[in-house]
Structures are given as structure tokens and as C-alpha cells.
């Protein structure tokens, strides 16, 4: 099944002994089937909270406001039982460390059989055939033998392939890949990126790819959301974001990536300062304290999201139409 995703004004707050953490503030996001959405940002920017909110994995001390519209249904308003039913079939998650996603005492094949428990129309043999076909599709040679392996017998790259196969088994309409290559070596990363690039041609659902690695985002995504301090500061098509970034934070972030420079730099570019405290977020722009183009209203007035003719959305006072 394929359905569109429409996140509206999504906010998440955590109750902690130190106070209320505004982990996610007023996030809007739209995705159509077949699109790959990239979410990029540094640690603490709200990426993982956003993923948890989508995947229904928020801890009990989280308070959610706003709407996650999926195929016309608001997931936030749904009662927990029906939400689980819907999500089990429709939303799949590939996490950063695939080792923790598998039970260490069961073989990979047995676990993937269990992943299809909702398919009561299929017999065990049929399920195993589907698994073998899916493992083959994600580039695992000799899938029959691999199904009898235990998770620890697989290498990191292999486990990530199995995790992707597991996610695709339920034929989900929304596949969330949370830092899928962060724990891998460059060569493995290249292979997983290649696999995802191949899959996206045949897959007709939505892929949400979360990464702090700009190269991976540039390689795979159609549309990019740049997050900072729990907000989306800029969103746009991938070429727009990388070639014509409008928000000062996006520019600074792109400028920091050493992979963009071939000649040796004497000093690597940085963004001075530290991200804002999310317990007491600044009243104005969350990037104001580190911004090079800061002017009077930035510290006091929270910038509204401006839609630019290019399809860009930017939350900045300095951006004019």
C-alpha cells in the first residue's frame, strides 16, 4: 500500500526532573509515495525524537501535540491499539545498530518468519521462500544458508542488509531508516547506500532517511529537511538545499563538511557556539546565538516558516521572498 505522509505542527515535550524539554517544535513535513525524504542535523537537533514519534516509539514521559497524517488518518489521535495494528503493517524502521534489533538466540530466518505473523494466509514454507527472495534482493548471497545463521555470525554490513530485508517484508508504505550507515565502515556504507539507491527505484512507498552525513543525504534523497534545536529550519528539494541554501544554518552546516574541499585546508570551518538548551528554548530564532547574519528581531521574535517560490521553506528573518 502507498499513502502520503503529512505531518502538521508536530511538537514533542519530555517531562524530566530538570524541567520540560521541548525536543520537537512545530514540525511540518509532507511526503508522497515514491519520495525519499532526508532529515539532516547535528546531535540533539530532534532527529531521533521525530523518528520515534513517527514510529510510535516515544518514551512514556513524552507529550505529543499536532498531527501525523498517514493516508488520511491521524496517527497521533488514534487509540494505541489501532495505531499499533496500522503501524505494524505500514511503518517499518531500520535502526542505526542492527545488532540490537535482533534476538541473539534465534536464527535470522526464524525471526524473519515471525516478522510476517500478520500474514496468516501464508504457510511457514511460503514465508521462508519470501524471506529468501527478499534476502537475495538486498544482496545477500546464499540466502538459504544465511537464514540459519545467528545475528552475531553476520558482519555489521550484512546485519544492516538483513534489517532492511526485514523492514521490507511487511511491504510497508513508510520505511524509516535512522542513521543506517553510521555504524559502518566507508566501504560498507557505500554498499548500503548503493542498495538503498537501487531499492528506491522499485519501492513505491515513502522512505524517510535520517542522517548527519551530508554525502549520504545528497546521494539518496529527493527532499531534505534541515533540523536544528528541535525545529525544521529549512526544507526543500535536494538540489535547492545543496546548491542554493537559504538559511544561514544550512549554509554553515554545508560549509563545515570537509568532503567539499579537495585542497588541504589549514583550518577546518566550524560553527562557533553550542546548540540551544531545549529546556528553555530562546524566544527568537534558535540559531540566533551562532548566526553570522543575526540582526535585531532574531533574538526576540520567532521567525515564521516562509515558503519561497522555489519550493523552499525557510525559518529565517533574513530570508526575503
Amino acid at each position, binding site marked *: 500500500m502507498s499513502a502520503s505522509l503529512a505531518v502538521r505542527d508536530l511538537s514533542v515535550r*519530555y517531562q*524530566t*526532573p*530538570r524541567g520540560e*524539554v521541548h*525536543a520537537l517544535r512545530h514540525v511540518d513535513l509532507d511526503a508522497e509515495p515514491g519520495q525519499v525524504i532526508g532529515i539532516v542535523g547535528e*546531535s*540533539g537537533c530532534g532527529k*531521533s*525524537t521525530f523518528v520515534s514519534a513517527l514510529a510510535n516509539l516515544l*518514551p512514556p*514521559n*513524552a507529550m505529543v501535540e499536532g498531527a501525523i497524517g498517514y493516508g488520511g488518518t491521524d496517527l497521533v489521535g488514534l487509540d494505541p491499539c489501532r495505531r499499533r495494528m496500522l503501524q505494524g503493517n505500514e511503518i517499518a524502521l531500520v535502526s542505526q545498530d542492527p545488532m540490537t534489533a535482533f534476538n541473539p538466540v534465534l536464527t535470522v530466518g526464524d525471526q524473519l518468519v515471525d516478522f510476517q505473523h500478520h500474514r496468516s494466509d501464508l504457510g511457514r514454507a511460503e514465508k521462508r521462500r519470501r524471506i529468501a527472495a527478499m534476502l537475495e534482493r538486498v544482496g545477500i548471497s546464499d540466502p538459504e544458508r544465511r537464514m540459519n545463521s545467528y545475528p552475531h555470525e553476520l558482519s555489521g554490513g550484512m546485519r544492516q542488509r538483513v534489517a532492511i530485508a526485514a523492514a521490507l517484508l511487511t511491504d510497508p508504505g513508510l520505511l524509516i531508516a535512522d542513521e543506517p550507515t553510521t555504524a559502518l565502515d566507508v566501504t560498507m556504507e557505500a554498499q548500503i547506500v548503493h542498495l538503498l539507491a537501487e531499492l528506491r527505484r522499485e519501492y513505491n512507498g515513502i522512505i524517510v532517511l535520517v542522517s548527519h552525513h551530508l554525502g549520504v543525504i545528497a546521494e539518496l534523497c529527493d527532499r531534505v529537511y534541515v533540523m536544528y534545536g528541535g525545529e525544521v529550519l529549512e526544507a526543500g528539494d535536494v538540489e535547492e538545499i545543496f546548491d542554493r541554501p537559504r538559511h544561514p544554518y544550512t549554509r554553515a552546516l554545508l560549509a563545515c563538511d570537509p568532503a567539499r574541499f579537495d585542497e588541504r585546508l589549514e583550518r577546518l570551518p566550524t560553527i562557533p557556539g*553550542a546548540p*540551544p*538548551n531545549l*529546556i528553555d528554548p530562546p524566544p527568537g530564532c534558535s540559531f540566533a546565538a551562532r548566526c553570522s547574519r543575526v540582526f535585531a528581531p532574531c533574538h526576540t521574535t520567532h521567525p515564521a516558516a516562509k515558503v519561497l517560490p522555489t519550493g523552499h521553506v525557510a525559518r529565517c528573518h533574513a530570508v526575503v521572498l
Partner: protein
Amino acid sequence: MSFVAEAVQTRRGWGHFPLLRALASNPVTLAALVIVIVFLMMAAFAPWLAPYPPTKIDVLHKLQPPSAEHWFGTDHLGRDLLSRIIHGARTALTIAIGSVAVAGSVGLLLGLIAGYGPRWLDGVLVLVFDSLNSLPMIMFALAIITVLGTGTGTLIFVIAATSFPSYARLIRAQTLALKNSDYILAERLMDAHPLRILLVHLLPNVVGPLIILLSMDIPVVIMVEAGLSFLGLGVRPPTPSWGSILYDGYTSIRSAPFVVIFGGLPLVLATLGFTFLGEGLRDSLDPRLKLRRPA
């Protein structure tokens, strides 16, 4: 650097006794804490709290039911039961805390040595732990008491000798897990003396689970002491002990059941108190159970 200031401030906000405050926040733990403090007071101030000397025999008033003069009644020799229970607390806690402290320190020391020392020494020590663990405590106690005679010191020795291996194994496992961690390697690279690594860097990081285990073992030792005294292997007869009170009451259980009831009550209360306090300690010390701040 706003979050630095915030972190500093939060620590101040937690006050000087964050552990005590965390313990008191749970009503069951708070009740346990009160019980434990009451027993500790009883043990510490027994001579002043007890209305009669615990060994004063008054055969004329033997097996008297509770009255205004003798709140808990008297036993088969006419001794005041309340006074014997209060002094019994002193015996029980001396032995329990004494043996747990001895076993804990020996276990900590040997566990650290086994975990961090050379492989051959580890092998020897583990062999010692295993052989001591395989001794049945009652048989071992019988043998030791035959040689040394009964008494508080003997009891502490017997209990400590049979229980320290499990503490040592715990500390050894913790030490083995930490000895290859980056911060220990970093210290080794700076050529820190092994003693410094053991005491400054390993000890504070392995001692937490031991303290929890020790506090949960105190009631076990109280029961062991009572059991041994019940069998006549504990403290010497005139010395009051909860176990011997029970034994004395046991012979007259039909005519005077209150002796067994009042003799058993402190045992039950002390066991519950120390056990729940131990669990409260574990809940507030174990970092895995703490609410973590989400990223």
C-alpha cells in the same frame, strides 16, 4: 555554554544528600528505613532502653503473660522478654553487620586482586573461592565451633568465611569487565601505579553493586545467626539472642505461646526492614533504572 551552568546548578539543587532523598521518596523504603533505624537504636542503647537486665532470673515469675510490669511477658526462667529482645537486637546486629563488613572487605580486596592481578593469581584465588563456597555452612560452623567454642567472634568468623567468596566473585567479574575499558588503559599509558588504578579508578566503580548486595545480605545473616543459636551453636546461653529466645519458647509453646510470638516478631520485622531498604538502595543506585534524559 548554557548547559554547563545548568548542570552545575542542577547538582546544587539536588541538595547534599541526594541518596537519602531518593530513598525517602518511596513509602515502602521509608518505612523500611524507619524500622532499620529503630533496630539500630535498640542495639546501640540496649542497656538504657531495656527495663530489666536481660539475664536476671526470677523463677517465681516464670512464663508470665504480658502485663504492665513485663510488656512481653517472661520466659521459662522468669527473665523479662522485652529486655531480652532489645539486647538480642544488639547480638543480632553486631553479628550481622560485623560479619557482612568483614566478608565485604575481604571479598572486595580479593576480588580486586583476582580481577586485576596476574592470571595465575586469579586462578589460585578462584580455586579458593570455589572450595570455600562448596563447604556446607552448618557443617563448617559445627567444625569451627568444636575447635574454637561458641561465641560472637566465632560466629562472625564462620559467616564471613562462608559468604565472602560470593562477594569476591562479584567484584572480580566487575573488575574484569572494567580492566580493559578505555579509562583504565589511559591510566596505564600514563604509567599510573597499579595500586592507584585499583584504589582510585576501579574501586569506586565496582563498589556500588557490592553495597547493594551487602545490605540485602544483612537479613540473611540475622536469620543464620538466629538459626545457629536455635540449634545451640550460636552465642553462649546466657547472652540473649533472638534464636535462643525462640528455642526457649519452643519448649513451652503450648502453655505460653506469647514467648514464640514475641520472640519471632523482631526477626520478621528486621528481615523485612533490611530487605526493603536493600531494594530501595538498589533502585536508587542502579543507573540502569534511572530515568534518562532523552536526546
